[in-house]
C-alpha cells in the first residue's frame, strides 16, 4: 500500500517537475532581454508643451530620473508598506501572497494580485496589462532574473522613477513636483504616504478628483507604516493629525495641446514628438483657454437642456485668434475634454450657413463695383443650374423684403441677395475670395455650387476665426500659428515662427465690409450680443445651416477673432421644446461667443476699429440708401470720400423708418 502510495507520489512529483520544466523552457523562449542598467529603460526625456506665459501645459512620455539617495526615505518606507511589505525578504516573488492569491482566484473570489514591487516593475517595464496566466508566469521569471541581477536598492530606485501617479506625473520626482511643488527628497511623511497610496490606483485615488479616497488610502498607508515598524507612535500620531497641501493641479493637456502635438507630429514625426524630449513653446493663453473650456461646457449644457431629446450629446467648439498677430490663443473642440478626442475646433468642417456671406459680399464690393448703399432687390428668384435644374433660394423667414441696401441685406442675412451676388460673381470667384482670406479647406471644383452662397461648404471654427480676423486687420492676413518655438533636448532651436501678416485686400473695401458686419451686431441678426451686455466695438456674422444642424457665430474685436459653433456630431436637428423652434446662430453660437468675449476682454481690451483715410461715415436709410437728417433714423455706412449718398425727398424723409426691427437670423 505504502509502496503504491510512494509510486503515485513520485509519479505526480515527476510529472509536475516535467511540466514545470517544459513550461519553463517554453516560456523563456520569448522572455525579454534585461539591460545591465535599468536606467537605460526607465529614463526618458519628456517632450514638454508650454503656454505663451511659460507655464507647462502638457508633458508627453518621459520622466525626471532621481537616484534613490534623493528620494526621501519616508516615501520609500510608505511605498514598501503600501505595496510590498516583504520587499527585502523575498527574491522577486512572495510565495505565500501568491499562493493566497491563487487560492482566492480559484475560489472565484475577488481577483487577487499578490505581486511584489519587483513584479510590478517588471510588468510596467515589459508587459501588457492583460490578465493572462502566461503573462503572469513570464513576469515571475523576469522578476527572478531581476532579483538575481540587481540589488534591492537598484530595483526600488527603478520602481520609484517608473511608476505612474496619474496625469503627466511619471516617477516620484514629477509627482512630488506636480502635487506638492517640491522635490522628491523633501516630502513629509503625510505627503509621502499620500503619494505611495496613489500608486495603487492613480485615477480613483487622485487627490484632485477624489480627495476623500486619497485621504482614506493615505491613512491606511500610515497605519501599515506603523505596523511594519517604519513609524514610531509619535510620528504616526503627528502624521495622522497633519494635513497635506496640494499645489496647482497637474497639467493634463487640452484640445489646444492635442492640436499642437498633431502639428508637431506632421513636422517632426511621431517618435520625435513622443520620445524626442522636445520643448514646444506655443501661443496658448492658459487663462483664455480656461475661460473657453468653461464657457463651451456651460453654454452647451444650457442649450441642451432646452432642446428636444436626441439621445446624443450636444457638442460645441470655440477657436480664438489674436487679431494683431494671428496667434491662436484658445481652442476647445468638445464640451468635455477627452485626451486625444475629436477636436471640432480644427478637424470638423461643418456647414457655416450665413457665416459665408461676408466673403460673398466682400467679393461683390471688390468685383461688382457695388457699395454698402447699393440697392438690391429681395424677391423670388429662380436660377437655372448647370445640371439644368431650377433652384429658388428661400429666406430664413420665408418672406421677401423688396428693395433695400446691401448693408441692410447683410444685417438681415437675406439668402436671396447672397445667391444673386454669387450668381453674378460665379461661385468659383467667391471661393477664390474665401481662399484669399485663408480658408484653405474649400475646393474650387467640388464646392463651386450656387448653394455655396448660403454656406453649404464646410469650414472649421479655427479657419473661420482666422479668416474673419482679416476684416479686423484692415485686409492683412495672418496665418494662424500655434507653435512659436521648438527646441530639441539640447536647447537648440529647431523652428521658430513669427507673426507674419500678408496684405491681401484694399483696407478701404475691408473697412466698408467691417462696417456692414458691425451692423449685424448692432441691429441685425446678432443683436443678442448687445442684449447680453457685451458693449465693446465688435463685428461678426451669425450662421445657421439648413435644418438647424449647425449654429455659428463668428465675430471679432480689435483684439480677438473668435468663432463659436454648436451642433451634434451626427446631423441631428436642434429644436427647442417650448416654444418649438430651430436653434440658429443667434441662439446657439452667439451666446457662447458673448460669454467668452465678456470675460476675455479683461485680458484683451478691445478699442474702436480704425477707419482708413479716404472713407467717411454717413447715416442712410436702410431701404433707400438715402441720407437721413437724423442719425437715429438711419444706419451708419462707411463710404469712399468721393461717394455722397443722395438726400431723400422731404416727404420720404418724414416716413423714414427706424433701424431694422427684424428678428430673423441666418
Amino acid at each position, binding site marked *: 500500500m505504502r509502496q503504491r502510495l510512494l509510486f503515485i507520489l513520485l509519479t505526480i512529483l515527476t510529472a509536475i517537475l516535467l511540466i514545470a520544466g517544459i513550461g519553463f523552457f517554453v516560456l523563456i523562449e520569448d522572455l525579454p*532581454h534585461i539591460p545591465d542598467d535599468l536606467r537605460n*529603460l526607465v529614463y526618458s526625456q519628456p517632450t514638454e508643451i508650454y503656454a505663451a506665459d511659460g507655464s507647462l501645459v502638457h508633458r508627453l512620455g518621459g520622466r525626471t530620473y532621481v537616484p534613490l539617495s534623493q528620494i526621501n526615505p519616508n516615501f520609500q518606507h510608505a511605498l514598501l508598506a503600501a505595496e510590498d511589505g516583504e520587499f527585502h525578504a523575498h527574491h522577486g516573488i512572495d510565495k505565500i501572497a501568491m499562493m493566497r492569491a491563487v487560492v482566492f482566484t480559484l475560489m472565484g473570489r475577488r481577483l487577487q494580485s499578490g505581486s511584489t514591487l519587483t513584479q510590478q516593475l517588471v510588468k510596467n517595464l515589459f508587459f501588457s496589462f492583460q490578465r493572462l496566466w502566461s503573462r503572469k508566469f513570464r513576469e515571475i521569471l*523576469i522578476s*527572478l532574473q531581476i532579483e538575481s541581477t540587481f540589488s534591492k536598492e537598484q530595483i526600488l530606485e527603478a520602481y520609484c522613477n517608473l511608476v505612474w501617479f496619474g496625469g503627466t506625473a511619471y516617477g516620484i520626482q514629477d509627482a512630488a513636483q506636480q502635487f506638492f511643488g517640491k522635490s522628491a527628497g523633501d516630502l513629509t511623511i503625510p505627503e509621502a504616504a499620500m503619494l505611495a497610496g496613489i500608486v495603487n490606483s492613480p485615477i480613483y485615488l487622485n487627490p484632485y478628483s477624489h480627495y476623500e479616497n486619497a485621504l482614506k488610502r493615505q491613512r491606511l498607508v500610515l497605519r501599515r507604516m506603523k505596523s511594519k515598524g517604519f513609524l514610531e507612535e509619535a510620528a504616526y500620531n503627528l502624521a495622522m493629525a497633519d494635513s497635506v497641501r496640494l499645489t496647482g493641479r497637474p497639467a493634463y493637456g487640452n484640445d489646444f495641446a492635442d492640436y499642437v502635438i498633431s502639428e508637431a507630429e506632421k513636422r517632426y514625426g511621431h517618435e520625435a514628438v513622443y520620445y524626442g524630449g522636445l520643448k514646444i513653446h506655443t501661443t496658448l493663453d492658459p487663462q483664455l483657454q480656461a475661460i473657453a473650456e468653461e464657457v463651451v461646457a456651460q453654454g452647451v449644457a444650457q442649450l441642451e437642456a432646452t432642446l428636444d431629446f436626441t439621445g446624443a450629446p450636444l457638442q460645441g467648439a470655440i477657436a480664438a485668434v489674436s487679431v494683431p498677430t494671428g496667434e491662436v490663443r484658445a481652442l476647445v473642440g468638445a464640451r468635455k475634454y477627452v485626451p486625444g478626442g475629436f477636436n471640432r475646433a480644427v478637424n470638423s468642417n461643418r456647414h457655416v450657413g450665413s457665416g459665408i456671406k461676408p466673403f460673398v459680399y466682400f467679393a461683390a464690393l471688390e468685383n461688382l463695383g457695388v457699395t454698402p448703399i447699393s440697392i438690391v432687390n429681395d424677391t423670388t428668384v429662380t436660377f437655372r443650374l448647370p445640371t439644368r435644374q431650377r433652384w429658388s433660394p428661400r429666406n430664413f423667414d420665408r418672406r421677401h423684403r423688396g428693395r433695400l441696401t446691401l448693408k441692410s441685406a447683410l444685417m438681415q442675412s437675406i439668402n436671396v441677395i447672397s445667391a444673386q451676388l454669387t450668381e453674378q460673381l460665379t461661385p468659383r470667384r467667391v471661393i477664390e475670395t474665401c481662399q484669399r482670406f485663408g480658408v484653405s479647406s474649400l475646393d474650387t471644383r467640388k464646392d463651386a455650387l450656387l448653394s455655396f452662397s448660403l454656406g453649404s461648404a464646410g469650414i472649421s471654427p479655427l479657419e473661420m476665426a482666422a479668416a474673419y480676423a482679416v476684416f479686423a486687420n484692415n485686409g492683412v492676413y495672418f496665418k494662424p500659428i500655434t507653435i512659436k518655438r521648438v527646441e530639441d533636448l539640447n536647447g537648440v532651436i529647431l523652428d521658430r515662427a513669427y507673426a*507674419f501678416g500678408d496684405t491681401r485686400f484694399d483696407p478701404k473695401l475691408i473697412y466698408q465690409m467691417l462696417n456692414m458686419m458691425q451692423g449685424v451686431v448692432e441691429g441685425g441678426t446678432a443683436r443678442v450680443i448687445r442684449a447680453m451686455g457685451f458693449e465693446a466695438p465688435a463685428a461678426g456674422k451669425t450662421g445657421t445651416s439648413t435644418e438647424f444642424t449647425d449654429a455659428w457665430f463668428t465675430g471679432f474685436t480689435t483684439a480677438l477673432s473668435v468663432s463659436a459653433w454648436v451642433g451634434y456630431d451626427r446631423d441631428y436637428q436642434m429644436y427647442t421644446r417650448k416654444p418649438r423652434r430651430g436653434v440658429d446662430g443667434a441662439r446657439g453660437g452667439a451666446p457662447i461667443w458673448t460669454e467668452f468675449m465678456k470675460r476675455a476682454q479683461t485680458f484683451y481690451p478691445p478699442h474702436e476699429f480704425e477707419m482708413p483715410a479716404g472713407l467717411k461715415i454717413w447715416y442712410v436709410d436702410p431701404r433707400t440708401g438715402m441720407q437721413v437728417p437724423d442719425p437715429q433714423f438711419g444706419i451708419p455706412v462707411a463710404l469712399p470720400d468721393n461717394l455722397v449718398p443722395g438726400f431723400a425727398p422731404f416727404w420720404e424723409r418724414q416716413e423714414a423708418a427706424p433701424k431694422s426691427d427684424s428678428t430673423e437670423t441666418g
Partner: protein
Amino acid sequence: MSALLATYQKVVRRQYFLICLILGLVLIGEMAFDIVERAMGRYLVWQNAGREKIGRSWEQAQQRGTAGVQLESVTRERRRQALELESISNFEELVQYVETNQQTILPPAQFLQIYHQLPYFLQPLLFNPDSLVADARLQRVTNVVVDGNRSRFNVVMLGSNNQTVRRASLSIEQMNLLINYGKERNLNVRSESRFANYFFSAGEFWDLYESLHPLRRRQFIQEVPLLTESAGEITGVGISNQYTNEFVEVAFAVSGIRAYVYYLPEDYVMDLLSPDREKAYEFYRLRRQQIFDNR
C-alpha cells in the same frame, strides 16, 4: 521468504523516509533561502544575452532611437538651411531660398545688404530708404521675416517684442522686376514689337548717351553696369513702349538673340530720348495715355 519480504519492506520504508526527508529539506530550504528562485534567476541571467529586446520599454527605447534619428535629420536640415541662408547675398537668391524653405528669418544686417544691392530707384518697392534710416536710428528692427511663393513675396521687419515695424508685399510683377534687373536673357530686341518704336543701333545709342548731362551719365554708369563692363558688345538698345510698375524696360542687345534687360525710371529714359524731341514727346504722350488707361 519472510526475511526477504522484511528486507524489502525495510528498504521501502527507508526510501519513503528518505524521499520525505529530501522533500522536506527542499521545502524548508526553499522557504528559507528561495533556492529554486535563485537557481532559476541565475539560469535566466546566464541565458539573458541571447534574448531579444522585446517588451514595452524596449519598444519605447527603440522609438527613442528613432526619435533621435528623426531629430538628427531635422537638425541637419536646419543647419544646411542656416548655411545656405548665410550665403545669400542678393534678392534672386533670397526669393529662390524662400520658395524652397518657406518662412525665413534674416538678421537685419543681411537683409540690408541684399536691399542695398538693388538699384536705388527700385529699393522703394520694398521699403522707403528714409524709413529704414529712421528704424536704424531707433534700433527698432531685430529680425526680418521673409515669406512667399512665386506669386507673392512678403517682407516683415519685426521689433524686439515681435511686433511688426514695417511690412512690404511684392506682386509677381514687382518680383520679376527685381529679379530680372540686369539679367542677360534670350531676347531678340530688334524683332520684339514692344521695342519697335524706340530701337537704336549701338552708334545711335552712344550718341544719345554722350548728350546726357554728366550727372545723369554717372547714374547710368552706376545703375547699368553693362555700360562699363561690356560696352563693346552692345549692338543695339531697345526701349519698351510698355511700363512695368512705373519703370521702363530697356534692353541692351549683345547679339542677335541675347540682351541685358534693365528697368529704368521714366526720367532716365526721357533724358535719353530728349535730343529727338518728337520721339521724346511721343514717349511722354504714350506714358500719359497708359496712366489714364490704368485709372
